[in-house]
C-alpha cells in the first residue's frame, strides 16, 4: 500500500477558496433579503424624517433627493455599490455617514462578543469535560439540572434577573446600565462589562457545556480510550490527550454556532443594559425607520454568521487528521 504522506496544501487552499466564495455568495443573498425586508417595513422614510406635518410636496422632494422614487432594482444596486465602495449612505435621522455612525458601536459589540466568547468557551469545555468524566455522579447531575434550567430562560429574563440580583434590589454591587461616550474604550470601566458579559455567557453556556459533556462521554466509551487505559496511561492523561482531543471536534462546530448566536444575542442584551453597541443601534434605527443604518447593521450580522461558520469548518478540518489529510 502506497500513500502520499506529503500534505498537498494546494487541495486544501482550493477547498478554502471555494468555501470563501460560497460564503460571499451567501452574504450577497443576505443583502438581497435585508434590502427586501426593509422595503416591506411599514412607513415611509421620507415621512418619518419630516414628521406628520410635512406637506406632500416636501415629502416628494425628499423622496427624490434620497432616490426613493427610483425602481427597486436600481435602488438595491446603488446601495450595494455604495456598501462595496465604503459609501453605505447617510443616516436619515442624523444625516451622518452610516459607516462613521456604527463604527464605534461595532467595536463595542465586538468587545462584548469576544469577551463573552473568551469566558464561555473555556468554561464550557471545563464544565462539560468534568461532568462527562464524572458521568452520573452528583456534579454531573447538578450540571444537567442547572443547564436545563438556564436553557429554559430567555436571555432578556436572565439579563433582568441579573440586574435585579446584582445591581438594584438585592446586592447593588454592579452598574445596571452602561454609560459609554462615543469613541470611549469599553475596557475603560470593566465593571460595566460584567453584567452584559455574564448574561451572554449564561445564555450560551448550557448549550456548549452539554455538547462537550455529550462528546466527552462518547469518546470515553470508545475502544481507543479503553486501549489507552490498558496501556497503563494515567487517567488524567487519558482525559487530556486521548479524550479531549477527539471530543473537541464537535465542540469546535458548536463554538462557531455559539459565536454566531452571541452576535445575534447582543441585540437583546445590549438593549437591556443600554449598551451602546450594534444591537441597540439596530433597535433605535428600526424605531426611526432609519433604513441605511438597519441595512448595514443587518448585513454586518449576516457577514459575521457566515464568517464564524466558515471559521468553524476550517478549524474542524484542521483538528481532524482524517479530514485534514483527505484525498491526499
Amino acid at each position: 500500500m502506497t500513500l502520499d504522506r506529503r500534505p498537498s496544501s494546494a487541495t486544501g487552499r482550493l477547498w478554502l477558496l471555494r468555501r470563501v466564495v460560497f460564503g460571499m455568495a451567501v452574504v450577497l443573498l443576505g443583502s438581497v433579503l435585508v434590502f427586501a425586508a426593509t422595503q416591506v417595513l411599514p412607513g415611509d422614510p421620507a415621512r418619518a424624517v419630516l414628521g406628520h406635518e410635512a406637506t406632500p410636496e416636501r415629502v416628494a422632494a425628499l423622496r427624490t433627493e434620497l432616490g426613493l422614487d427610483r425602481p427597486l432594482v436600481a435602488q438595491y444596486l446603488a446601495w450595494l455599490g455604495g456598501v462595496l465602495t465604503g459609501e453605505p449612505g447617510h443616516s436619515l435621522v442624523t444625516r451622518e455617514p452610516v459607516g462613521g455612525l456604527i463604527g464605534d458601536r461595532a467595536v463595542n459589540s465586538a468587545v462584548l462578543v469576544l469577551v463573552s466568547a473568551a469566558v464561555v468557551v473555556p468554561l464550557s469545555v471545563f464544565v462539560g469535560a468534568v461532568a462527562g468524566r464524572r458521568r452520573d455522579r452528583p456534579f454531573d447531575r447538578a450540571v444537567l439540572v442547572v443547564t436545563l434550567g438556564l436553557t429554559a430562560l430567555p436571555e432578556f429574563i436572565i439579563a433582568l434577573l441579573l440586574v435585579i440580583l446584582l445591581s438594584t434590589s438585592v446586592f447593588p454591587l454592579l452598574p445596571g446600565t452602561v454609560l459609554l461616550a462615543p469613541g470611549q474604550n469599553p475596557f475603560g470601566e470593566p465593571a460595566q462589562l460584567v453584567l452584559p458579559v455574564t448574561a451572554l455567557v449564561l445564555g450560551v453556556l448550557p448549550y456548549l457545556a452539554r455538547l462537550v459533556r455529550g462528546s466527552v462521554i462518547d469518546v470515553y466509551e470508545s475502544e481507543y480510550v479503553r486501549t489507552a487505559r490498558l496501556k497503563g496511561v494515567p487517567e488524567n492523561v487519558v482525559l487530556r490527550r486521548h479524550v479531549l482531543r477527539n471530543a473537541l471536534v464537535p465542540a469546535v462546530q458548536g463554538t462557531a454556532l455559539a459565536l454566531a448566536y452571541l452576535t445575534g444575542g447582543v441585540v437583546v442584551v445590549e438593549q437591556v443594559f443600554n449598551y451602546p453597541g450594534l444591537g441597540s443601534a439596530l433597535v433605535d434605527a428600526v424605531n426611526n425607520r432609519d433604513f441605511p443604518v438597519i441595512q448595514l447593521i443587518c448585513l454586518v450580522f449576516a457577514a459575521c454568521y457566515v464568517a464564524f461558520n466558515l471559521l468553524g469548518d476550517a478549524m474542524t478540518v484542521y483538528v481532524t487528521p482524517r479530514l485534514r489529510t483527505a484525498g491526499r
Partner: protein
Amino acid sequence: MTAVAVKGLRVDLSGRGVDVVDCVDFTIDAGEVLGLVGESGSGKTTVGVTLLGDARRGAAIVGGSVVVDGQEVVGLRPDRLAKLRGSTVAYVPQDPSMALNPALRLRRQLDELFEFHRPELPDAARDERIRTTLREVGLGSGDQEEDDAFLARFPHQLSGGQQQRVTLAMAFVLRPRVIVLDEPTTGLDVTTQARVLSTVRDLCATHRVAALYVTHDMAVVSNLAHRILVMYAGRIVEAGTSAQIFDAATHPYTRALLAAVPLVSQRRELTAIPGDTPLPGSRPSGCAFHPRCPDAVAECATTTPDPVQVSPGHVVRCLRATRLGPARTAPRAVEPRAVRQNDVVLRVADLDAFHGRRQVLHDVSLALAARECLALVGESGCGKTTLARSIIGLHHRHSGGITFRGGEMATRARDRPPELRRAVQYVFQSPYNSLNPRRSIGEILREPLAVLSPVPAGKGRAGRTRAAVSEVLERVSLSPTVAARYPDQLSGGERQRVAIARALVCRPEVLICDEVTSALDVSVQASIVRLLRRLQDEEGLALLFVTHNLALVRTVADRVIAMRAGRLVEGGPVDDVLDHPGDPFTRALIAATPEFGAAPPGVPSAPTSREDRT
C-alpha cells in the same frame, strides 16, 4: 516458569449477583501460547481482560485470584494497576481501526508507553527500541528516514493489516511478560491473518512471552496455541494440549466447534450448533450446554458437572466425559454436486470498473448458471465487492456488459425494471449495519414485497402479505414470531438470516452474497452456509458467493474464480482449483488458510436435522 496463574475467577454484573464467568482456573508458562476458544457471549473476552485487572462497564471481578508475573492483580490500586498494564501485561485489541486514537500520530501512541513506564530511558534508546519492534512486526524498513515517515502517519492512513501490526508493536515494545490477544485477526483477510499469526508466534517464542489468544475460530489457534481452553457460558468446559483438543476432543461443545470449521483441504459437511449462547442471568441449570447438546441425558439438566480428568492434562467439564470417549464417527465428507453449466442466467463480459479515475476492475468476465454456486475469492481491496456492486447496480462507473438471461441490464439499479431487480438480490456483509434499527423485522420484509412483487389488491391482501412474511421466515429457519421484533433484539446469526430473508422474500433467481459470514462466529457461519446450500437445493437459486475465505469456498461453492488486483487470475471447478492451483496467487491463498489436523474429531450428527427443522 508460571507467568500467569488464575484461580477461581468470578466476574459479576455489578449489583445483580449474576456471574458472567465463574470457576475459571488456568496457568500460562513463559513462552507458552494458550488459546481461549468460544462463541460470542461465552465470556472469553471477559476472562482475557481480567489479566489486566479490567472489567467492562457494568461488570466487576468479585472473586478468585489472578496472579501475573508474581503479582496479584485483583483488588490492586488503580495507580499500581496502571504501572502493570502495558509494561508487564499488554493487550492487543480486536478491531485495530477502532483501537488506535484517530487524532494521534503513531509515534505518539508508541512513545507514550515509554513516557509512563520507562521515563528514565533516553530518547535515542526509545527510538532504537521502537524501530526494532517495528521491524519485528513487519512494519520497519531498516531505513531511519522511512521509519520516521511511517511513525508520523495517522492511523487512518494505514491498511487494516498495518493497523493490527501497530497494535502488536504497542503490545510488544516494552517486552511484557504476558500478552492478551483479543481476536486480533477477525477483520483481516487470510493472507494478512497468516502473517499476523506467524508474527505473534515468533515474538512469543523469541521474548519468552506468555500469551492468551482469545478467538471463536478453532482453526486460527490450531498452529499457534500449545494448549487450548474451550469456554461456554462463563465456564471452561474443556482444557488440554492442542493435540488433545484437536485429536481427542471430548466435550460435545468442543466437537461441535471443530465440526463448524470449514477446511480448505477437504469438502466437509459443516455442522451448526443449534440455538444461541445463553446470556448471563438466563443460563440453563445443570450443564449450561445441555439444551444444545446432542449427547445430553436427563441428568445433564439437573446436575452441574465437575471437571473430570480424562487423560493427563486433559480436563473436561461434562457428566458423560468418560463415557463419550474420543472421536466416534468419521467426518462427513461431501461429494461435489453436479451442476448443468449450460443454463446461464447471469453473464458479465469484459467489465472495466473505476473509482474516480482509478481503474479497479480490468476486463472481468464470468458466467453464472442456474442452481450453481460460483465463489469469487480475493484479498480485501482486490475489487471483488466492486464487481458484486456493479452487478447489482450500486456501482455504476463501469463499462462492459452485464446481462441477465441474455438481456442487457442498466448500469444503475434505479433504471432497471422491477422484474430485473426482483430477479437479482443482494445480501450485505454486516447484518449489524444492513438492517434498519427503527423498523420491525416484519416491516423490513414487507418493503421489498410491496415494491418488487406487489400482492394484488383486494380482500385478504394484508393476510396474504403476512403469510408471505411468515413463509420467508420459515424458509430461513426463523420463527414467524420474529416478525414483531426489532433487529437489536436478535443475535448476529438471526440478523443475517433476516437479511437473507429480505433478499428471498420476492423469490429471486440470483443471490449475491458479499462476505455474508465474515462478521459472524464460525459456528453461526456454519448455520448460514447450511441454509444457503439448502435454499439452493430446494429453490434452484444461483449464488455468487464473494469471500476471502478459501476453506468456505471448498464447502459452499461448485466453481471458483480467484481475483487479484482487479483481474481474474484463475477459475474452474472448486476441487480442481484447490487441489491443483495453477496460479501462484491461488497457491499463496491456500497456504495462508489456517488448517488443522488430518484426523478431525467426530462430528455429532443430531444437531444437523434439529437445526433444519427449527
